[in-house]
């Protein structure tokens, strides 16, 4: 397994997998609590148009996707806040427009093969320059979570209470959507646009089976994210499998293990004896090991 580190592209891929594993679930915890689990999916569709535009104009696909994704996420948030009823259809229009536009534009450039790579991921195509951009974006995402985390927590708990606490609710809503968009761009090369949001949602779904708090859920989800990204990548190298689906299926396996483990933990917890942190961390690690 360690021989994969002999290759430059695998070292780059590994670092990029770790960055994805950390950032996607960190943002995902807020996204899941805010019931926006499919936001990442929508942004992923829109990203394709950005890539198409970038290929057409000869700029970096990463940059094209970044600009279009952030604009798309802001548009989604504005539509969501504006109309409670028509927002659903407006979102669908944006998603399919983004996907169709992207396919059309990349096809024009004769990029059928690269379209496949963007849709389902090809971590081995990440260049050293891409890695610097991805690392920079990951720092931005984690910085936002660190600085605005408390406010985003209250926003995701109860938007009205957030407003009576004087929080800039509209700004924070756009911020969390834009951060999710940046995360999609970070992960798109490796996981693929159609599977990106799985890594934002599935590790969180797994973690919340065994945790009691928000911070704990986020940290465990990040652990699940890194574990499935690194193990999935190693597995795909070893057995010549596509990395995106391998990573996502591993995360789903951990989720299933956590569902089983979580029901056991909860049954034990119905006796109101305080469980110390170490014991809980141990139970979580166990669930992870069983999954991996």
């Amino acid at each position, binding site marked *: 397994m360690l021989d994969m580190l002999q290759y430059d592209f695998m070292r780059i891929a590994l670092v990029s997998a770790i960055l994805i594993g950390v950032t996607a679930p960190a943002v995902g915890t807020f996204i899941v609590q805010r019931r926006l689990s499919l936001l990442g999916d929508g942004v992923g569709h829109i990203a394709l148009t950005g890539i198409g535009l970038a290929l057409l104009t000869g700029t970096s696909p990463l940059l094209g996707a970044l600009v279009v994704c952030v604009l798309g996420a802001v548009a989604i948030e504005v539509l969501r806040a504006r109309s409670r009823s028509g927002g659903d259809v407006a979102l669908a229009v944006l998603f399919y427009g983004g996907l169709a536009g992207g396919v059309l534009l990349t096809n024009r450039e004769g990029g059928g093969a690269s379209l496949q790579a963007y849709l389902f991921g090809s971590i081995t195509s990440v260049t050293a320059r891409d890695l610097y951009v991805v690392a920079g974006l990951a720092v931005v995402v984690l910085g936002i979570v660190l600085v605005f985390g408390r406010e985003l927590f*209250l926003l995701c708990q109860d938007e009205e209470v957030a407003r009576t*606490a004087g929080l800039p609710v509209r700004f924070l809503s756009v911020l969390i959507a834009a951060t999710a968009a940046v995360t999609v761009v970070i992960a798109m090369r490796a996981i693929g646009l159609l599977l990106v949001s799985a890594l934002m949602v599935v590790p969180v779904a797994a973690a919340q089976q065994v945790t009691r708090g*928000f911070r704990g859920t986020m940290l465990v989800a990040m652990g699940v994210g890194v574990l499935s990204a690194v193990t999935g990548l190693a597995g795909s190298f070893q057995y010549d499998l596509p990395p995106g689906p391998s990573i996502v299926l591993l995360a789903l396996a951990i989720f299933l293990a956590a569902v089983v483990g979580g029901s056991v933990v909860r049954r034990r917890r119905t006796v109101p004896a305080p469980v110390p942190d170490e014991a809980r961390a141990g139970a979580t690690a166990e669930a992870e090991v069983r999954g991996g």
Partner: protein
Amino acid sequence: MSSAPPLQMTGGRVRFDGREALSGVDLRVGAGEFLAVLGANGSGKSTLVRALLGLVPLSGGRTEIYGVPPARFRDWKRVGYVPQRLPAGGGVPATVREIVASGRVARRSRWRPASSADRAAVDAALRAVGLADRARDSAHLLSGGQQRRVLIARALAGEPDVLVMDEPTAGVDAASQAALAAILRELAGRGRTVVLVAHELGPLEPLIDRCVVMEHGRVAHEGAPPPPAWSRAAQAEDPHHHGPREGARSDEIGMRAG
């Protein structure tokens, strides 16, 4: 401190989908006052307090928090809002302490970690509602009454001057109601302003300075608290009933001032 009242509405109107939920309400809540907003389901009592805080836009009239319209109000650390329930959201768990600590957000800089004053306020709020021993438990696994107390503790942690509570007693067991009455007695003793929406007052009744009874989006009765026998049925029959509580009330106020 400004001399403007904590909450004041003049001719407040709210429309939902063409139906008028508030039709011209005048209400002034003075500093240190303990006001109960009563009424049947759909009478507009929740809408009234939500409009007072700017959570529901007015279609007519005006409302002010400490003399400033909600949209331009900035001093939100003076306001504590207790919603009816803890939304489950997407099901990410949160500990009791995490939720209560988020009530400090209006008093904290986003660039600084929690100060010892923040931690002390959160500890005090948890103790006040009797949930200090549940601080590390998942709030969503608590009973309904305990969840209400978590929401109250979140508002208390912000050390507000005016506390607005939407039905804190509905569906709460007797023990939690008694605990709530004790918390509110202490707040009233410290001169905090409290606005409370309720179906029935129960053990809170002796604390109330003034009652507003809502009916069809209007104030149907305003004055002393109705007698303890006040119930939804009695209200339906005679919403203008005045309770003989004047003597008891001035006793209460005298005790509180002393």
